[in-house]
């Protein structure tokens, strides 16, 4: 019997039993308004043989392995792949919501062409042939006019090999403009670049550490790889194995992470650097630092003289003179005795690990806070040791350069080749577009990203898009960015295509997941990889030579051949086998289960992927690539850059040549404006991490459990503050910053400081599914001022006032 169900039933069906229960609450939240928009009855009860297939989740950068239960041609359940080293069978709520993505009624079902204009788009469904021909014509035309370099690609976390293909496409076409969404780890990565000289692969042995000091990192709410981080969290409490790791969370708000930590230290927002340096003061004055490591592996700890004989302040002098405990207590509002205790604990419980500064899953923190925090790791010798800070080795094949195309220009639009950090800062793209400098952007391709909604300066990005003559989005859903496109070529969702993913952020081991499609496409969509390969074939020339693959599968096979050529690592297998493999590999024996690239390919498909389970500690030439070849408390790269950019000193309120510019230090805190007395700090919550997921009912339903808020934005305020303002729990209030205001429901939250209010990220969409078009995006109230010294988007907090609506 085929039972046809309506949209409401979809909610229950697509999410499985548990999801159905969760989703059933949706009706209480006013789904009646949505029911008016119900799509045609579309879901059938599946029939046919049962089976299981592997896939990879791409709903966050972790890339967890999935196991999908199929009945006939329909996916009915998602759970974790027990062989996958990242999640070992576990899955977070986002992963579980994958079925709601697949069968979402608001998916784009075929290529769309905007036959209206950017202000008032009107979408018309077109054929894939027409869509591809349109893009080819435009790209060919630009290339013929020697303007290939005026094409840019913005991408998010859409897979690693996929990204490799995109970049190869762009390079061979002739453009240097491959840009990616910022990551929450960019701050930590910037510190690793300036202090260690490594530009990627920042990783931590979370499971092995004995003391974790987190400076505002949302460790348990989507940071890094949520599931593997939760596994580490479990290991810290494995008393049966004799393990007790102390986890201290330093942040102004009682987040889920802070609530589950062993200790929550509530500091004044923005003072993470001062606290880290106060802890450094304790380590130095009490002799708790690793004297040998500091002497042998670091630079700039002691005062020093440069080649010209100029004296420079070292880290020790700076800390001892400016970060005495009383001073730090005054800055951070943390009592001296707590700072002292934290310092002693951090120095005595090794391996100890410090992470931060304040960062969410997608928003990086302050550069100098990150430098100060990472300096703690160097002080206690927690670099390149089990339980410490590590640098993940590259995946085989990552070093490829590929063909550069005839019009390749060395400078890209955001001048990242002249910037301090070696990666392009996407938040600078709007200014580059609007100024037309260094050249006008003629075409923009957007894949796996919605910068208009998620970037701190998203509104400016939206303005800039209007100036780009040709915008192509590959989004499977209409969102804020694709709504401004000329063409939308909807990508398959995860289960419909070849899926792949590399090591998630913070994961220490090189890893590559690969899984074939689980089922036939539900709609008339196409894998973007296949679309780009078709574009390459049709464009011909160097692009076709660089990407001669007939299908995405063929491309992936070639990349797997690179992994085979490395003659190392293992395909995913059980934990037990991995112990064996690790023991063998560590002793110099490699016992592969495959003897050819084809065999490796087949085994990767069967198990879900390949990885190298052994980390080789202390490869100093690989992990310390600074000018001094040491960990640099005093960053010489920063010094060189600051010398070329005197405006940085001015912005920092320091004199040019001040050594503090090159050493970790507490940056000046802005004064609280009288008319805006409360600090608004947005928070990133796991269900809507990265600003995505609001269109999925299951995630909406579980988003604000701690304040009993669902399906809409809320404002967290300390009850004391609310009482002073005459506000009650549940009141509708206006939150107003100099940039604008938003109406939200007030929720009392004793975990908020009296001078700070919080709003969740991920709400406030204006495009796409009606389920996502709820609440307000706090980023729209926050001015985005990129950190000139690093190119990191700051834009994560602002001052506001709150009053009853």
């Amino acid at each position, binding site marked *: 019997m085929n039972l046809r169900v309506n949209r409401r039933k979809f909610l229950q069906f697509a999410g499985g039993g548990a999801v159905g229960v969760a989703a059933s609450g949706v009706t209480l939240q006013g789904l009646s308004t949505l029911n008016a928009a119900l799509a045609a009855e579309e879901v059938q009860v599946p029939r046919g043989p049962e089976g299981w297939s592997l896939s990879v989740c791409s709903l966050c950068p972790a890339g967890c392995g999935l196991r999908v239960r199929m009945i006939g041609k329909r996916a009915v359940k998602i759970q974790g792949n027990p062989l996958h080293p990242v999640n070992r069978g576990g899955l977070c709520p986002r992963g579980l919501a994958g079925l709601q993505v697949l069968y979402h009624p608001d998916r784009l079902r075929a290529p769309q062409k905007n036959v209206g204009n950017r202000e008032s788009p009107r979408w018309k469904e077109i054929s894939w042939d027409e869509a591809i021909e349109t893009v080819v014509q435009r790209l060919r035309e630009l290339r013929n006019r020697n303007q290939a370099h005026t094409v840019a690609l913005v991408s998010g976390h859409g897979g690693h090999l996929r990204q490799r293909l995109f970049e190869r496409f762009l390079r061979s076409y002739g453009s240097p403009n491959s840009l990616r969404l910022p990551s929450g780890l960019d701050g930590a990565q910037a510190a690793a670049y300036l202090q260690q000289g490594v530009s990627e692969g920042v990783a931590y042995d979370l499971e092995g550490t004995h003391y974790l000091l987190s400076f505002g990192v949302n460790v348990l709410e989507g940071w890094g790889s949520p599931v593997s981080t939760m596994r580490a969290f479990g290991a810290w409490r494995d008393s049966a194995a*004799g393990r007790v790791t102390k986890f201290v969370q330093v942040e102004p708000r009682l987040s889920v992470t802070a609530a589950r930590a062993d200790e929550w230290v509530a500091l004044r927002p923005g003072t993470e650097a001062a606290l880290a340096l106060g802890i450094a003061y304790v380590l130095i004055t009490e002799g708790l630092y690793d004297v040998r490591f500091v002497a042998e592996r670091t630079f700039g700890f002691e005062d020093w003289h440069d080649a010209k004989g100029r004296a420079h302040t070292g880290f020790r002098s700076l800390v001892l003179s400016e970060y005495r405990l009383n001073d730090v207590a005054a800055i951070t509002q943390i009592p001296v005795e707590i700072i002292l205790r934290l310092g002693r604990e951090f120095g005595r419980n090794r391996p100890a690990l410090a992470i931060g500064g304040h960062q969410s899953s997608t928003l990086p923190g302050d550069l100098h806070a990150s430098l100060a925090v990472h300096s703690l790791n160097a002080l206690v010798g927690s670099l390149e040791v089990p339980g410490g800070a590590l640098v993940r080795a590259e995946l085989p094949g990552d070093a490829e350069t590929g063909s550069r195309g005839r019009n390749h220009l060395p400078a890209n639009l955001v001048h990242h080749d002249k910037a301090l950090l070696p990666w392009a800062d996407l938040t600078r793209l709007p200014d580059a577009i609007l100024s037309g400098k260094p050249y006008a952007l003629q075409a923009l391709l957007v894949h796996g990203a919605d910068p208009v909604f998620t970037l701190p300066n998203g509104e400016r990005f939206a303005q800039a898009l209007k100036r780009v003559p040709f915008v192509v989005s590959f989004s499977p859903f209409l969102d804020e960015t694709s709504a401004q496109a000329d063409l939308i070529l909807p990508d398959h969702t995860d289960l419909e295509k070849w899926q792949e993913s590399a090591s998630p952020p913070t994961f220490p081991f090189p890893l590559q997941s690969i899984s074939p499609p689980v089922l036939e496409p539900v709609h008339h969509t196409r894998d973007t990889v296949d679309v780009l390969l078709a574009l390459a074939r049709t464009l011909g020339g160097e692009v076709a030579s660089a990407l001669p693959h007939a299908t995405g599968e063929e491309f992936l096979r070639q990349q797997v051949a690179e992994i085979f050529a490395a003659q190392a690592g293992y395909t995913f297998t059980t934990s037990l086998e991995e*112990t064996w493999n690790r023991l063998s590999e560590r002793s*110099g024996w490699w016992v592969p289960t495959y003897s050819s690239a084809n065999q490796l390919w087949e085994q990767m498909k069967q198990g879900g992927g390949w990885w190298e389970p052994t980390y080789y500690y*202390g*490869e100093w030439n*690989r992990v310390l690539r600074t000018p001094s070849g040491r960990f640099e408390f005093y960053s010489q790269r920063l010094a060189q850059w600051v010398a070329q950019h005197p405006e940085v000193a001015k912005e920092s309120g320091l004199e040019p040549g001040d050594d503090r510019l090159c050493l970790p230090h507490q940056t000046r805190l802005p004064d609280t404006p009288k008319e805006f007395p409360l600090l608004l700090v947005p928070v990133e919550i796991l269900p809507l991490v990265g600003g995505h997921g609001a269109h999925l009912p299951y995630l909406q339903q579980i988003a604000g459990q701690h304040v009993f808020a669902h399906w809409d934005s809320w404002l967290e305020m300390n009850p004391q503050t609310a009482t002073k303002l005459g506000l009650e729990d549940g009141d509708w209030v206006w939150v107003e910053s100099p940039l604008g205001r938003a109406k939200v429901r007030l929720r009392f939250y004793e975990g908020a400081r009296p001078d700070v209010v919080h709003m969740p990220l991920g709400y406030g969409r204006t495009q796409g599914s009606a389920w996502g078009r709820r609440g307000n995006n706090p980023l729209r109230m926050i001015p985005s001022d990129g950190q000139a010294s690093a190119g990191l988007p700051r834009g994560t907090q602002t001052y506001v006032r709150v009053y009853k609506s």
Partner: protein
Amino acid sequence: MTVTTATAKRLPIASGDNLRKILWLFLLVVLSPEGLRAQGPGGAGYFVIPGDAKAGLKTFFDKGCVRCHAVLGEGGKSAPDLGRAPAGHLSAAELVAAMWNHAPQMWTRMQQEKVTPPAITETEMSNLFAFLYSVRLMDEPGDPQRGRQLLSEKRCLECHQTSPGGKRRAPELREWASYRNPVSWIQAMWNHAPAMQALMEARGLPWPKFEGNDVPDLIAYIRTQVTTPHRHFYLQPANPEIGRALFQQKGCANCHGMRGTGRAIAPDLGRRPFPRTLGQFAALLWNHSPQMWASMKAQHIPRPQFSNKEMADLVAYLFAERYFEATGSPVVGRRVFEAKGCASCHASSQKAVGPDLSRWQGRVSPAGVATAMWNHGPVMLGRMREQQMSWPLFRPGEMVDLMEYLNRSAPENRVAGQRR
């Protein structure tokens, strides 16, 4: 006893299809099905270790050994790391003795922690033995700090350098940073030792001697000098059969004997004390290189060169030989049986408290003894304590003699309490 076809029959070695389930000793273990079919002379499984090392790892986890014991750092910390302790090389019989000697302490601890000792079958015990023997060959990660210190102390840096530049006469050691396996170092040392020796003699440098964990420490330090990611060179499991052939072909057998067979100009490699790990073996080879080379020159024996794989196969052969104990003496074994008081309880007499060990005749194997001891030991210990008897401890070599005695001769019909 060299494992010949005859002696192998005593061990629980299956044949035919079951042989495929038996894995070669790790170094030596060929994990592919093709490898498992490989057999020694006459198809007897010449170097087949009675057990599956990987299955042994599973047993190690499943039976909860891992909760207290670690192997090379992986596992619990409350009991000794069985990859490292006891320190020396252990044959299968010595492993039984070590287990026997340590057992009462282990049971007492388990009793204190309210842990019931899990029952272990003989197959599982064989697997455990294969696993432990395999991991014990592996070198624990060396100490790079100590390695750096050794480079200076042993004056290696007077010829070699570890970083680019300079005008040293010997190769830059960083070139070797990617080599992950001590066997690669053994091979390099072997092939280049004469040239090194000549250079050192010319410069008046003494031949350095390495001991203990020196070589792994040196390797650990040189590994840290790696510059190119993904340039880690591993070795794949070697084949002791090929190694055995190489032992002849390369002329090793011209000087070295093996358990009494062959020439005895140089030490018998089946008898002399043997290192536990490959790194220690590398040190042994290095230390004796000048002496060996002088002897070879005196006999006009050309120094054979080895490829990495050949050296791996040869080393695999030597370590495989060492799994099995030299032949035990039933005469000495009988003395051990009596001196340790075994005869007090185990006899064919109906009055005997313990089982009649004469029924084991012809079926005694290290894993069998260990299994019996493990499963019945707590009861035995309790009874011995009731009778105020002390748990006998075995000195090196005694266990293999005892096993040989039990295998070949039925214990005499003695009554409890009777001693020599």
